[in-house]
């Protein structure tokens, strides 16, 4: 089979690395060749961050190129738009409908764009938008919003639900597991109308 490419973008500190860990465990278990590329260091301090996940029979490059992502996951709305040109024609975008203001906006020198979802619709018709932070908050901890998003992603990879649960058992510490499993299950069925 061909290589599948999933680009996870967000803001440093949002937990993209944990999401990649769950995906890595899942895909390895499914006997795929897997490559994941992430950036540590300075960008992790609140900057724009990106994690590349690629899997298939044999994967060479760990990096997704512009126009090369089958699925784009945006943990933050404007970051989803920033990276939207990485999407393949016909690709999917899953967006956490959250605004995190960058410093030029905070300091008042620039404005946070008001029409992000519409601009994304111009380049992608297969769009899934949800306020995962509010969903996670109702479950008791906003931090598990990323696992809610993983739940949404689980609908599209053709991998059995139990395999996802298995991967979470392997990668998430026991004391957080129940909460994360609930977040995942909710994400796997929640409505995501753009």
């Amino acid at each position: 089979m061909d290589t599948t490419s999933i680009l996870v973008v967000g803001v440093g500190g949002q937990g993209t690395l944990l999401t990649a860990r769950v995906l890595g465990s899942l895909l390895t278990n499914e006997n795929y060749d897997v490559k994941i590329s992430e950036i540590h260091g300075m960008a992790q301090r609140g900057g724009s961050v990106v994690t590349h996940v690629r899997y298939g029979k044999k994967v060479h490059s760990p990096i997704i190129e512009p126009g090369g992502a089958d699925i784009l996951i945006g943990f933050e709305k404007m970051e989803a738009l920033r990276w939207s040109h990485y999407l393949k024609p016909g690709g999917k975008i899953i967006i956490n409908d959250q605004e995190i203001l960058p410093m030029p906006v905070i300091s008042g020198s620039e404005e946070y764009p008001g029409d992000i979802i519409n601009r994304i619709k111009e380049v992608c018709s297969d769009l899934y938008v949800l306020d995962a932070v509010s969903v996670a908050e109702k479950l008791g901890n906003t931090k598990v919003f990323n696992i809610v998003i993983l739940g949404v992603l689980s609908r599209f990879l053709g991998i059995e639900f139990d395999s996802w649960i298995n991967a979470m058992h392997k990668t998430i510490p026991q004391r957080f597991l129940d909460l994360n499993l609930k977040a995942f299950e909710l994400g796997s069925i929640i409505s995501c109308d753009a």
Partner: protein
Amino acid sequence: MKELLIGNAAVARGAWEAGATVATAYPGTPSTEITEHIAHYEEIYSEWAPNEKVAMEVAIGASMGGARSIVSMKHVGLNVAADPLFTVSYIGVNGGLVIAVADDPGMHSSQNEQDTRYYARASHLPLFEPSDSLEARDYTKMAFALSEEYDTPVILRLTTRISHSQSLVEPGAREDIPLKPYKKDVKKNVMMPAMARTRHLLVEEREHKLADYSEISPANRIEWGSRDIGIITSGTCYQYAREVLPDVSYLKLGFINPLPRKMIEMFAAGVKKLYVIEELEPIIEDQIKSWGITASGKELFSVQGELSSRIIADAVKGTAPAVANAADLPVRPPVLCPGCPHRAVFYALNTLKLNVTGDIGCYTLGALAPLSSMDTCICMGASIGTALGMEKARGRDFAERTVAVIGDSTFLHTGVNGLIDVVYNQGITTTIILDNSITGMTGHQDHPGTGKNIKGTPAPSVNLEKLVESIGIRHVYVVDPFDQDELFRIIERETERHEPSVIITRRPCFLIARGSGAQAVFDSSLCTECGKCLKIGCPAIANKNNKPEINPVLCVGCGLCVGLCEQKALSLKGA
């Protein structure tokens, strides 16, 4: 069972499997996780050294003592360790010695893009370069074996994409490598002119033997495809090229110095059009062109930044598909975290409009707007010497308006030498040690001042106050940077003083100390729009029509903005 490992973890795994027993490093992105992962192996002594030079010397000592040892650093760390590097090349090894160096093309987290392969050539040391995690593990093991077989330290060169990309590795068993006997050997280990002259001859001989090894090394291989195009490449560029050019011929180099000349000549003769694809400098290209081989290289591929599958496809085939342009959006630069103690210091320095010589760490972000309070950043430990140089060039009036800022870990790395120069040569420079009690930017590693070692167990701690006093600094003050009144008072007084002073702003990194659960709340009726809270550059405070808007998700209740608000429009709730 295969495991998904980042390249750095694979190097750690390779060192363990190769029977290494000593590992040392100073943290530096993208190399840090090598030693962090090694620290999980009980069979290997591991440590954070105060800087890369000391780390290199510890690794050399361990090798002389008969152990297989590994020292790891980022590319610029090798500059610090370059002095022992060049001479240990003459000395060679007893136990295998591997020097893992991670370059950072594209400068994801670095101040320059230097190419470690130049160091291998200049110091006449063999160099391996893996192209994924499996090779990172395998080449580490090969490097240890080669080191002992050829009596040479071996450089393992990584780049950010290798260090921080995960790929599958089938873990192997640990070799049982007994400690080699230690024998005093003055002719080999004492590098005075007479001995070094003899050793230099051996270095040249060794390089010839290594060139022969390069021809048969399992790290260098030809993959014949279409003979119309041949590509000589290495590292992550090999993977980029394979992705988009599956049918051409490859000479994939994993052993870069010295190069396999016969293999390259044979490959070049076997293809119609030859490309050399390498990130950063034309190390391979320049050498093969000097042998009279025609190839395309740096006229197509920049010496700056990272290459990619797309760039390679475009250059070789001219067929990269068009893609949409990136959206025009506000940039999202990295910022000091909410609750960061550095913010309080930079707010003061910006308000006082001082000249600030800076250094390397999270706090380099203090150079960005709106704090905008750093004038220089060169390398680890540079701030204090730079401030003294400015003073000597421009005089004392200028020095009264100038401070050097340096983190605690950076001060112990190479900053202390600069301070010795200030005292000895009678400068008046004021130094601010930003003591957040951790190595921050690289992800919270302990250092000689934190009271803990790499394993997190208690260790002796350098007392910064006593250290600087012993150098001869008579004016040493410790202040909590969130006590802004006191901080302003001390900075103003000490910059004007005609003697050198050290101000230690002490407050732990917020990511470690965490908050009390309090949050800032804003009462708009009391606000006079003075704008102070908006000038601290806190990600949790947005500018809403010249008034603050607190983001409750981001606010950690550090209280810096509350302390600055004279109208009491900001207060802390829920502590």
